[in-house]
């Protein structure tokens, strides 16, 4: 039984979100106190993982200083980074473990909360079988914690079902790169972006979702690079595009196939490269033969001439890069979309060199590192396959268990929630995940959570999801536990512990190890420090694709990051992949994947005639669990607005500031309109960071890409009508 523990009002009074505006003690109280130190570490928000120096005094974060020597961002920060220190000393911070009561939550002792959690997990498993319990992890965890979650699920609980919120982020790109190139990683260091002479950003709102990357793009333009931007919205970087392609939501594949069609038709391919280093080109070329620019224009809404021009810009360049992010990946054909991008790079020989390549822009804080070491449902540390007997033997040996005791692959994140809803999974332990806000079809997610027999959460704030928990274990913020992450370019970096957790909160890894002990599996979790976890992770990853064996905390500090793979202590790391023309498949070749068109899972029709696409704003991070509590960030963009083109708005009699009701096949929400010419007239946009009546994900649907199992957040059908203002608090 896991209905929300109390009324929303009551929960909000006690647990927030409240807005923190000021450093501890206020703006004017800082002089003459205890000495201040600066800790060189990284921002906790987003996959850029910008270097930052946190100011610390009396075990409290008091501000920041730019870290200008760190090469990735050279001191630059977006507003989230500037204000991230305000998540410390926050009035909403969970200071004790919480145990559910009839009327809400009460503070409990750690013994009580941990014993209860371990007992309930075991009871559910004894009653319904080991796979009746699932584990949710997150891609904002350090790599040590992510590794630990995978081991915990498989060794301490013995369940097949562990997956993570990266399933909502990077998996389409990861699946495509693995299929085409043999490895799931952006192949180029970011410095390459500034060296390109043609850049194409598709489904990537770089200015708002990867702000620091803007500088790399502008530096390329300063040197004369041409910029192509494909997006249903005229995003901030589109303002300087040489070619803007207003692609209709869910039709990027048509655009990309037509570009490849033109490249093949007009002889812009790099035949020598294709022959020497790839397989499958002819079949892929055939698959795009019918996709001439005229046909693609009809599907995508991009002019045939513009498609021709984009193809020629890339095909005629030896230094072209294609950058893509969630716009391309959050589709029921997200994997094919990314495979098409890679196919264009391969066909034109734009890969494995400075300024040439296809790169995914990873979104979550540890989006790269969090998906490499066993937190995914089908994966073991080192980006190894859970079904590969050799991989199972290696990891089982490192863990000291028998290979046959390793469970097989389980469900993905959305499939886990589906299994909860249908009663197959009865118990859930979640960390770093707020599915009630971040999964599609939020009403379905709420129903599912209410059906759980046991729900345990590890978190530092009471998220909307945690309000449904039976027990909430007060965990740690990023700055409270040392570890590593891998940034967007697969540069492994060092997260420093800047402050201690509050006295009765605990480090996440301690909580997991303690739970394992209470489940009778303590001997596999005898870690005292994150460094000990990392040492085991190094060995577990050794010989895998994401080989961390040659990486140490000290080497990271010395080199300002180490790019994996790094197989030996002497190895400097690998900033750019495939320089020798060898790809990571056993045959050493890159594999062209055949491309086939499919419609979206939620098509527009007479009743739902408008495309709805969702995304982010620069001042909020993911489900907002952290950033909806920071005053300056909330003030910048306080509530979701519906972006709508004046042509559609006029038809509906809607003006900026009017309340509108947006209805999809799932549900309806009411919000204010913002009439702008920066979006296609057949499309509306809502950012997704908010819960309940303001949740864009009440409208989205649960159709998944069949391979990556990513939801189709970027394409839903809806209708719009004017509405009365909603009641307060709705």
């Amino acid at each position: 039984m896991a209905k929300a523990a109390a009324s929303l009002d009551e929960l909000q009074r006690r647990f927030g979100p409240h807005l923190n505006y000021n450093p501890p003690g206020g703006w004017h109280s800082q002089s003459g106190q205890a000495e201040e130190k600066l800790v060189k570490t990284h921002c906790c928000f987003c996959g850029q993982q910008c270097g930052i120096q946190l100011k610390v005094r009396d075990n409290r974060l008091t501000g920041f200083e730019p870290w200008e020597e760190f090469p990735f961002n050279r001191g630059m920060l977006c507003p989230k980074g500037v204000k991230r220190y305000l998540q410390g000393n926050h009035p909403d911070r969970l200071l004790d473990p919480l145990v559910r009561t009839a009327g809400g939550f009460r503070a409990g002792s750690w013994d009580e909360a941990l014993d209860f959690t371990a007992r309930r997990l075991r009871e559910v498993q004894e009653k319904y079988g080991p796979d009746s319990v699932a584990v949710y992890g997150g891609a904002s965890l350090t790599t040590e914690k992510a590794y630990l979650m995978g081991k915990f699920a498989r060794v301490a609980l013995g369940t097949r079902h562990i997956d993570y919120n990266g399933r909502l982020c990077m998996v389409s790109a990861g699946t495509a790169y693995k299929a085409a190139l043999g490895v799931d990683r952006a192949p180029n260091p970011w410095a390459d972006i500034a060296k390109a002479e043609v850049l194409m950003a598709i489904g990537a709102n770089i200015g708002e979702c990867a702000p620091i990357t803007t500088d790399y793009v502008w530096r390329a333009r300063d040197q004369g690079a041409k910029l192509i931007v494909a997006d249903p919205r005229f995003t901030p970087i589109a303002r300087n595009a040489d070619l803007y392609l207003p692609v209709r939501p869910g039709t990027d594949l048509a655009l990309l196939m037509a570009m490849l069609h033109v490249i093949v038709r007009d002889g812009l391919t790099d035949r020598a490269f294709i022959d020497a280093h790839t397989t499958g080109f002819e079949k892929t070329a055939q698959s795009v033969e019918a996709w001439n620019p005229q046909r693609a224009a009809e599907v995508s809404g991009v002019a045939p001439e513009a498609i021709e021009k984009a193809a020629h810009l890339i095909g005629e360049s030896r230094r072209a890069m294609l950058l893509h992010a969630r716009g391309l990946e959050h589709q029921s054909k997200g994997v094919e979309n990314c495979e098409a991008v890679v196919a264009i790079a391969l066909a034109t020989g734009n890969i494995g060199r400075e300024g040439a390549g296809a790169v995914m822009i990873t979104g979550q804080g540890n989006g790269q590192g969090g998906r490499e070491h066993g937190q995914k449902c089908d994966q073991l540390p080192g980006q190894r396959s859970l079904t590969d007997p050799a991989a199972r033997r290696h990891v089982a040996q490192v863990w000291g268990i028998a290979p046959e005791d390793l469970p097989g692959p389980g469900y993905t994140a959305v499939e886990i929630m589906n299994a909860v809803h249908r009663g197959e999974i009865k118990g859930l332990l979640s960390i770093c995940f707020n599915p009630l806000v971040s999964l599609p079809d939020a009403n379905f997610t709420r129903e599912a959570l209410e059906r759980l027999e046991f729900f345990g959460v590890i978190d530092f704030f009471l998220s909307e999801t945690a309000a449904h928990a039976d027990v909430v274990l007060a965990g740690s913020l990023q700055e409270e536990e040392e570890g590593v992450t891998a940034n967007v370019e697969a540069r492994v970096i060092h997260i420093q512990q800047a402050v201690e957790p509050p006295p009765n909160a605990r480090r996440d890894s301690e909580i997991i190890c303690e739970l394992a002990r209470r489940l009778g599996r303590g001997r596999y979790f005898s870690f005292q420090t994150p460094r000990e976890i990392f040492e085991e992770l190094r060995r577990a990853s050794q010989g895998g694709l994401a080989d961390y064996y040659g990486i140490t905390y000290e080497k990271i500090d010395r080199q300002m990051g180490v790019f994996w793979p790094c197989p030996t202590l002497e190895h400097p790391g690998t900033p750019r992949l495939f320089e020798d023309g060898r790809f990571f498949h056993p045959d050493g070749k890159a594999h062209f994947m055949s491309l086939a068109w499919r419609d979206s899972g939620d098509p527009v029709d007479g009743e739902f005639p408008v495309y709805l696409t969702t995304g982010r704003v620069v001042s909020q991070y993911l489900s907002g669990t952290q950033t909806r509590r920071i005053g300056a960030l909330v003030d910048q963009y306080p509530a979701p607005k519906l972006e709508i083109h004046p042509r559609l708005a006029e038809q509906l009699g809607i003006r900026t500031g009017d309340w509108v009701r947006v209805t999809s096949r799932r549900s309806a929400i009411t919000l204010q309109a913002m009439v702008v010419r920066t979006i296609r007239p057949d499309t509306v946009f809502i950012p997704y960071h908010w819960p309940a009546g303001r949740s864009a994900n009440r409208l989205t649907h649960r159709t998944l890409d069949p391979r990556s199992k990513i939801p189709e957040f970027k394409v839903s059908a809806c209708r719009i009508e004017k509405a009365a203002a909603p009641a307060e608090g709705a």
Partner: protein
Amino acid sequence: MFGREFYVDPSRCIGCQSCLKACEECETHRGVSMINFDFVDREESIATAAYVCWHCDDPTCAQVCPADAIKKYEDGIVGSSLKPRCIGCSNCVLACPFGIPKLVPQYEQMMKCDMCYDRTSAGKRPMCATVCPSQALAYVTPETIAATRREKPVNTFWFGSQKITTKVYMMAPRDAGEIAIDVADYTWEGENELVLQAF
């Protein structure tokens, strides 16, 4: 000051407002942002502009201050009003042709960008230009700007017949000369220096 100058290029701005947030965090600003930021016309365009005080060679704000509260330092930085002198009259707020100074009600004082004097005088970059993810606000040497940017720095502005030269540069298209913002500046009035130059 250590050879670096301040350059503003609105064409690079992505509207993230990092400058605004970071300005608040500067030790001497303490929660008050001195950045001027605008969506130019959000309904029509995504264009945004963030800018700092232009630090005029002959600052209008100081000229019109009845309390002599605004000082220009030796290195060309024009400071916020001096607290003991400022009478909160808003003359400077009204007179500045760039619209920079703001009366901050809680302090009953005019405050504006002082180019992070505490930082720049110690060899550091101003907070806004350090964090700016698009480098729309940049604090670098003239040599770096010349070597890396296509646009040209301009620091002469015409407001009607008032010619203003500034410490801070605006990045303008390569073929731009001095910047005038009033159509009247481009019409023949006989005396107008800019038009005379143009012909």
